[in-house]
């Protein structure tokens, strides 16, 4: 069966520090991968998605970036965090077609102080 992992689970970082959040999927190959952010009391905002290694689509211009160095690994990064980057970050995967169900990881709670 497929599983999706995210780490760390929680993170507290000072403003201006770098960020690296990792997401990995097991039990499938060539998944579509997604990064979402959920601000307090808000819905899900799609940040990035990837349909293959090295293929990244950005939905929201900001100081975040994403990379997919391996088929089942998706990384969310920032060189300098802002206060507004605080939130709950969710990674998701889908088998491949547009209409496939997306399956979510456990999330990372990021607090920028």
């Amino acid at each position: 069966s497929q599983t999706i992992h995210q780490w760390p689970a929680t993170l507290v970082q000072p403003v201006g520090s770098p960020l690296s959040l990792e997401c990995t999927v097991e039990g499938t190959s060539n998944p579509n991968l997604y990064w979402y952010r959920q601000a307090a009391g808000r819905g899900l905002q799609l940040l990035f998605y990837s349909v293959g290694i090295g293929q990244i689509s950005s939905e929201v211009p900001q100081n975040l970036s994403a990379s997919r160095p391996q088929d089942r690994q998706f990384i969310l990064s920032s060189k300098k965090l802002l206060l507004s980057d605080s939130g709950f970050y969710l990674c998701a995967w889908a088998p491949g077609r547009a209409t496939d169900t997306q399956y979510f990881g456990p999330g990372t709670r990021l607090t920028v102080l």
Partner: protein
Amino acid sequence: AQTVTQSQPEMSVQEAETVTLSCTYDTSESNYYLFWYKQPPSRQMILVIRQEAYKQQNATENRFSVNFQKAAKSFSLKISDSQLGDTAMYFCAFTRVASGTYKYIFGTGTRLKVLA
């Protein structure tokens, strides 16, 4: 552009009662998929139910069922025999069936509290 609207930010229901969560969407597409996801206090997003637009029959999953009204662009979720474990945020989501489409559009969510 497609949009998804959940007009009920918060709802509550007594245990064992039935509750309906509303979702409306706007699209010019004729073929698409709709989803309801549940996010309990643990924050893990879990798929509740999925509906294909070209299927007129409403989807059901145990105590969860939908009322899909394509002409009205409405996709409500009915939870029967509510249980304390149903307490969660519920998100409605839409994706269209089109080449090169990989994205979901989510509503802002409805916070449901089941009361003992």
